[in-house]
C-alpha cells in the first residue's frame, strides 16, 4: 500500500471547479459566466483564469443589473472585467421594466426576484445554452439538492422532481435549442471555503465587504442601510418617516440588490479578520443578511422554479 499525500481541501475544491468549467466549455456551444462583482463570482473568475489561461475565457461575462446595486460593486465589476480583458455584457432590470416585461407591485419592491425575467430575456437575445453561476449548496436548503449541471426548460423553470441524475464526475450538459443548463462550479463550497480561497489567492474585493461606517436604521430587527448612493449619484433606500438614522460600523456578507441586502455589525476590515469572524459567527449568511429569503420557508425554492438562479 502506498500512502500518497492528498490535495488540501481548497486545492480539491478548486480542481473540481476547474473541471466543471472546462466541461461547460467542452460540451456547450454558447455559454456565459454570470459575474455580479460579488465574492462568489470573484472566486469564479480566478477559477476561470486557472482553467483557461493563457487562452481567453471561452465565454463572455454577464451581469443582470437591477439598477439598485451598490455603486462600489458595480465599479468593481467593470474594473475587474477590464483588467482581465474579457467581454462584459450588462443587461438591466430597468430595461425590462421599460419594455413592460417586469412590473413592480410598488415602487419600493425588491427587484431581486425580477432578475429572472431579465436573465431569460438575455438568454434568448444571445442564444446562450448554459449560464455558469456561483451558487453554493450550503446557502439555502432548496439548493442542497441542486445538481452541478441543472436543467431548465424553455421557460427557464427548474423542476426539482425532474432533474438529471448526476453520477461520478460525468456531467451531462446537453440541451436542445431553447433549453438551458445552469452550471454551478462551486456547488460544494461553503462560505468559509470562499473566504479561505479569497485569502489564499489574495483576491481583491469591493470595499463594502470590509468594515466601514454607514448610515442605517433598525427595521424589524434588521440593520437596513439608508441613503445609499447609486452609480448615478441619486440616493436610494430613503428612511421611512420617524425612523432614527444611526452610523454603524458594518460589513456585507453577501451583496445583491440594495433593497434586500443587509449588512452585519462588524469591525473586520481585512480578509484575515473576516475568516476568523466567519469561523465564529452564530448566524447563517442568508439568515443575517438576505431580507428576501425570510419571506417564507420555501421562498428560494419558489423563485428557482420561476427561473431564478
Amino acid at each position: 500500500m502506498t500512502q500518497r499525500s492528498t490535495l488540501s481541501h481548497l486545492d480539491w475544491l478548486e480542481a473540481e471547479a476547474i473541471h466543471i468549467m472546462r466541461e461547460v466549455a467542452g460540451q456547450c456551444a454558447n455559454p456565459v459566466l454570470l459575474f455580479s462583482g460579488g465574492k462568489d463570482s470573484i472566486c469564479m473568475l480566478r477559477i476561470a483564469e486557472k482553467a483557461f489561461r493563457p487562452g481567453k475565457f471561452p465565454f463572455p461575462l454577464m451581469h443582470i443589473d437591477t439598477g439598485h446595486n451598490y455603486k462600489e460593486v458595480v465599479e468593481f465589476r467593470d474594473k475587474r472585467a477590464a483588467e482581465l480583458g474579457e467581454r462584459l455584457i450588462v443587461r438591466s432590470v430597468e430595461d425590462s421594466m421599460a419594455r413592460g416585461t417586469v412590473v413592480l407591485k410598488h415602487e419600493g419592491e425588491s427587484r431581486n426576484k425580477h432578475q429572472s425575467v431579465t436573465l431569460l430575456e438575455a438568454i434568448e437575445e444571445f442564444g446562450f445554452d448554459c449560464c455558469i453561476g456561483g451558487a453554493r449548496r450550503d446557502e439555502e436548503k432548496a439548493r442542497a439538492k441542486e445538481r452541478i449541471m441543472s436543467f431548465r426548460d424553455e421557460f427557464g423553470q427548474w423542476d426539482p422532481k425532474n432533474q438529471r441524475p448526476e453520477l461520478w464526475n460525468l456531467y451531462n450538459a446537453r440541451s436542445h435549442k431553447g433549453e438551458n443548463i445552469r452550471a454551478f462550479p462551486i456547488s460544494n463550497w461553503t462560505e468559509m471555503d470562499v473566504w479561505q480561497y479569497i485569502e489564499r489567492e489574495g483576491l481583491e474585493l469591493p470595499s463594502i465587504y470590509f468594515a466601514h461606517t454607514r448610515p442605517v436604521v433598525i427595521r424589524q430587527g434588521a440593520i437596513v442601510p439608508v441613503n445609499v448612493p447609486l452609480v448615478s449619484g441619486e440616493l436610494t433606500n430613503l428612511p421611512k418617516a420617524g425612523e432614527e438614522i444611526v452610523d454603524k460600523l458594518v460589513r456585507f456578507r453577501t451583496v445583491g440588490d440594495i433593497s434586500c441586502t443587509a449588512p452585519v455589525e462588524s469591525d473586520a476590515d481585512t480578509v484575515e479578520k473576516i475568516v476568523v469572524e466567519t469561523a465564529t459567527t452564530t448566524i447563517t449568511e442568508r439568515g443575517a443578511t438576505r431580507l428576501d429569503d425570510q419571506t417564507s420557508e420555501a421562498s428560494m425554492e419558489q423563485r428557482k422554479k420561476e427561473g431564478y438562479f
Partner: protein
Amino acid sequence: MSAHPIEDHGLLRFLTCGSVDDGKSTLIGRLLFDTKTILADTLNAIEKTSQKRGMGAVDLSLLTDGLQAEREQGITIDVAYRYFSTGTRKYIIADAPGHEQYTRNMVTAASTANLAIILIDARKGVLTQTRRHSKLASMVGIPHLVVAINKMDLVDYSQETYEKIKADYLEFAAKVGIDDIRFLPMSALNGDMIVDRGDSLNWYEGPTLLEILEAAPAAHTEHTEKFRFPVQYVCRPQDSANPELHDYRGFMGRVESGSIKVGDKVTVLPNGLESTVKAVQIGGVDIGEASTEQSVTLLLADEIDTSRGDMIVKSSEVPPAVKEIAATVCWLAETPLDRARTYLIRHTTRDSKAKLTAIDHRLDVNTLEKVPAEKLSMNDIAQVRFKLAQPLFVDAYEDNRATGAFIVIDESNNNTVGAGMIR
C-alpha cells in the same frame, strides 16, 4: 500563509444509508450540530417547527428537511448534499433516501463517496434493506463501510445486542465479499459515540464515528494507480500580440488517476502516437508535475492532433480500446430500457453511440440473487453488454472508478437514463 487550518487532511466524501426510521436524518443533524456547523438562526427555525409539530425536544432530523414538495409528502425524494468541517478536514455528506424504490438515488450518492455509513436500528437488527444498502455500496466501489448500530438507547445500551447484530452482519458480509468493515454502537438521538463518547457505552472501546471519519483514508491514496488523463478542452490562444503563444497547444483535463511529470513518455489515444511531456501547468504557470484529482494543462514535445474525447496515458500503461463492453448497469429513468434503440454512452470525456446486445441477468436487490431478465426498468440493476460505435479506452471499474464508469444518455430528451460500471 494562512494561519487558520494548522493541518489540512483534505476532504472526505461519504454517504449515509438508511431510512428515516433508522435515524439517518437525526444522525446527520447530530453530526452538523455537534461539529458546530448549525448556526443560531437555523436552530431557531427548527425549534419553532418542532414546537409546531408538538415535539418536546428539538428534532435534529428537521435540519435535513429539503424541498417544500418533500416536506408535504414527509419523505426524501432525492440526494441532498451537506457540509461540515472539523478544522482539519472538510466533509461532504451525500444523504440518500433508503426506500427500495430509490435504488437509483443511492447509486448516485455512492458514486462520489469514499466511505459509507450503513445505519442499523438496534431493535431490528440486520434487515433486507441493510443487505441491499451494503451490496449497493460495495458494487459502486466504496472502499470503506462503517456499520453504525443506532438507537442503542432503546435496547438499554446492551452489549449483547450489539455483538449479536455484528455477528449477523459479518456472516452476510462474508457471503457478499465485503471486507473493510468497521462497527460501532451509537445513539444519534442522545449524541452517544457520534462526536462525543457519552456515558452510556463505556463497554465500547473503539473510536467514535467522527474519529473514524477523521482517520479514513482519502480517495486514491491506498493503491498505486495508472495515469489516466481524458482531454476536456484544447487551448490554442493564437494571440498575435504574443509570439510565444503562437505554437501553444495545451491539453486541458483532470488527472483522473496516477501522476505525471515533465519528461514522462506518453501515448495519445485513439491515434496511438507517442510524445514526451514538455510542461505541466495550471493557468499557464509551470508546476512540473501533477497527481490524482488535479485539474491541469499538459504540453507535449511533439505536435499531435488531439481534441476533446482523446485520452493521454503513460506509454507503459496503455488501456485497451474496446468496441464492446460488459457492465453492471443501474437503470435510472422511468422509461424502461428499449432494446431496439440506440443510446449515447458517455465515458470520461468521450461519447459513443451504443446498443444493448444482451442482458445476462438482473440482480434482485432484496434477495441479492441473480435472476433472468428481458427488460430493465427504473431502479433495476443488471449485468449487460453493449456494442459501441466508437472505441472507448477502459479499465475495469474495480481497478479505476473514473475510467470504469459511464452514463447512458437518451438523445431524444438528453436525460441521463443509466449508470454503468465496466466489469
